[in-house]
């Protein structure tokens, strides 16, 4: 007899993700993903000056501020056919790559690691053996017996105080927790170090973007960060060198800590390499722009269908019709008025709420489709699309990570294991390694170009009478983000954001095809339906980001994600 479980936010804070799953004989057989809040950003933007849109769109989401700002200026530039100076591209590339480094580190350590790491078990570890384990996979100076002893004492103090703070997890001792105590202790130590390194990335981002969390220096037509290498009030050499040093420190953490930890989780949980694939159509957009027009990139984009890497088709430029013409959104199962599938330029956003209907409407998210197919987006899509095209940096880091997983797991694994829950984490770490190299490369490109005497950062936009349409895309930390605009006589007529988490967390479409979250849960094991750790593992591996809307203080810390077994 199938059991229904619901993982549902129950506070009055609206806007979160709800997952429903049916479990039969210890495995998930059906799943629904539901966004519980409607964001009306599209309606707020109508009638406004397109040059101001990015200021509003970066308020959509507190984690993804920079990505919505960047996609927004690109969409207006695309509509106007506006090129931007190469310095502005490099500065934007630094902003996006450093932001992604911050985001990926925080995602793994703060938001996902505790799905795999049992903090309380770390108390049983032998610090000396932990050092031996750590030294076998990396020569990071933080991996010392003294350090591990100190971390253990800290964890003991936290457990003794009864105030578990960020470690207050109901799932300690869950039967699906499988790491030995030494691996758990190493991971807790790295969790604490990750908090230092995310700060370094944040500091670098603040210098290069003017401020965090809301960046200041973008503009339709370029950036507003005046460059004068000798002026203290502008982007000068001292600031640029400080950025470079911080990025180098973060890069070292990624290589010596983040990647080895991901390898350890994937290898020590090798059973999980068979779970969580779901939709194996993938899409990534090209990014890290190398020219003024958006025709040459350091990160490739494209699509893969049915998990077959030989089907890869590139997305080549900001204007590529292969992307422009093939995106649509379907609202058959979404709380909007109608039952259409439309191109973003033609969409409207008219809410029409019903109750949660298993076979009808059950979410505020629309179902984005590419040529009518659901697509998985995110670091895994980007890594596979690059791998399939023989992109050098992607192939190098992917092969390195796969070889290390093979070594530790004692089985030979190839790129096929990336279609899985741990595969998404591995791809994110691979992407972080690539972006740490690319951030430094684009730092060099910027400094060389400034050194050649080019200080241009801005081309002024002009808005002709009549209608212009455009799309701005960005390969964000959670995947392909696109903003679509229709401008009429210099003001915004329509604006749609097709965000990565909508691609991944969206519902079934008019043909009944499930979205990636939903499909990824089918067949996952479930040891204890009242403690759905396995659901959290797979959903967290996508790096969900839809609860952007409301942030009220919840003073009494009500249990947040309530689990109901029906």
């Amino acid at each position, binding site marked *: 007899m199938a059991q229904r479980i619901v993982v549902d*936010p129950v506070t*009055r*804070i*609206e806007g*979160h*993700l709800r*997952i429903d799953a049916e479990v039969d004989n210890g495995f998930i057989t059906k799943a629904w993903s539901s966004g519980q809040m*409607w964001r*009306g*950003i599209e*309606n*707020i933007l109508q009638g406004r000056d397109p040059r101001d849109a990015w200021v*509003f769109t970066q*308020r959509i*989401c*507190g*984690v993804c*501020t920079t990505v919505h700002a960047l996609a927004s200026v690109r969409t207006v530039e695309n509509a106007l056919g506006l090129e931007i100076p190469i310095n502005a591209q490099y500065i934007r590339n630094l902003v996006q790559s450093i932001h992604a480094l*911050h985001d990926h580190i*925080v995602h793994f350590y*703060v*938001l996902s690691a505790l*799905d795999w790491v049992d903090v309380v078990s770390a108390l049983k570890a032998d610090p000396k053996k932990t050092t031996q384990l750590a030294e076998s996979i990396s020569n990071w100076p933080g991996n010392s017996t003294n350090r591990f002893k100190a971390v253990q004492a*800290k964890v003991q103090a*936290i457990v003794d105080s009864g105030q578990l*703070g*960020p*470690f*207050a*997890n*109901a*799932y300690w001792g869950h039967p699906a927790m499988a790491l030995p105590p030494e691996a758990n202790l190493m991971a807790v130590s790295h969790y*604490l170090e990750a*908090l230092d390194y995310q*700060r370094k990335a*944040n*500091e670098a981002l603040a210098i290069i973007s003017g401020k*965090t*969390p809301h960046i200041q220096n973008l503009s339709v037509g370029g950036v507003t960060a005046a460059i004068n290498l000798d002026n203290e009030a502008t982007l000068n050499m001292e600031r640029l060198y400080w950025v470079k040093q911080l990025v180098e420190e973060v890069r070292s953490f990624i290589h010596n800590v983040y990647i080895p930890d991901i390898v350890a989780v994937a290898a020590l949980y090798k059973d999980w390499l068979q779970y969580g694939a779901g939709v194996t159509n993938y899409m990534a957009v090209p990014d890290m722009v190398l020219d003024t027009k958006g025709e040459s990139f350091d990160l490739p984009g494209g699509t893969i269908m049915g998990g077959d890497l030989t089907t890869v088709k590139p997305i080549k430029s900001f204007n590529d019709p292969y992307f422009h013409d093939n995106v649509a959104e379907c609202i058959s199962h979404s709380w909007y008025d109608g039952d259409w599938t439309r191109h973003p330029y033609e969409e409207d956003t008219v809410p029409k709420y019903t109750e949660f209907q298993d076979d009808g409407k059950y979410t505020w998210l629309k179902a984005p489709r590419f040529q009518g197919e659901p697509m998985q987006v995110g670091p895994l899509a980007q890594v596979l699309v690059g791998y399939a095209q023989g992109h050098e940096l992607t192939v190098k880091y992917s092969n390195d990570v796969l070889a290390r997983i093979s070594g530790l797991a004692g089985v030979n694994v190839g790129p096929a294991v990336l279609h899985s829950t741990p595969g998404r984490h591995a791809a994110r770490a691979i992407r972080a390694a690539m972006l740490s190299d690319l951030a430094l490369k684009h730092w060099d490109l910027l400094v060389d170009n400034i050194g050649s005497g080019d200080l241009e950062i801005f081309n002024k936009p002009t808005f002709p009478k009549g209608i212009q349409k455009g799309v701005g895309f960005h390969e964000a930390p959670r995947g392909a983000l696109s903003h679509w605009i229709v401008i009429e006589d210099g003001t915004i007529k329509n604006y749609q954001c097709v965000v990565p988490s909508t691609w991944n967390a969206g519902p079934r479409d008019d043909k009944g095809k499930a979205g990636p979250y939903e499909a990824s849960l089918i067949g996952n094991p479930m040891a204890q339906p009242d403690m759905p750790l396995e659901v*959290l593992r797979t*959903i*967290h591996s996508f790096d*969900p*980001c*839809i*609860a*952007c*809307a*409301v*942030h*009220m*203080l*919840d*003073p*009494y*810390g009500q*249990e*947040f*994600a309530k*689990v109901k077994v029906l």
Partner: protein
Amino acid sequence: MTENIKRKTVGILGIGNYLVRDEGFGVHFIERLTKQYDLPDNIEVLDGGTAGIMLSPFIEQLDILYVIDTVAIDGEPGTIHRFTDKDVRSGNIATRLSPHQVGLLEILDICRLRDKAPQYVEMITVIPEDLTSGIELTKCLEPKLDEVMQILLAELKKIDCDIRPKE
């Protein structure tokens, strides 16, 4: 003004979503504060929006933190409630599904774990009336900006941080 207190770093953090009407109260508050008042060097101000862990560097530099926010409790819209961090407890990060669900209280927990939390944290909060999309406060909350401002100014005065309106 005693030397001891003068050296303390005081933070004023407004949080909320500017696109969700009354949810943006904290953001509107910071805008008004920076427009209308001159702030001494030891007061740091931040419009935190809905950011999560990106707020930790700001918070970790502070001795005293005042947070201006909306609050999810039952009561008349517009009612002001004050809490210290001792009064409230955080949720459970690991069972949350997304990074946005790491709220202020969880960030304070993380700062504590690093032994870098401010000594004193007070939240001055207001119950919202309308959480639909839009960028203006309701008539119910708009006058609360001044009320909360007066509360904050009185608090700052108590710790010898007198701030003055701009000329």
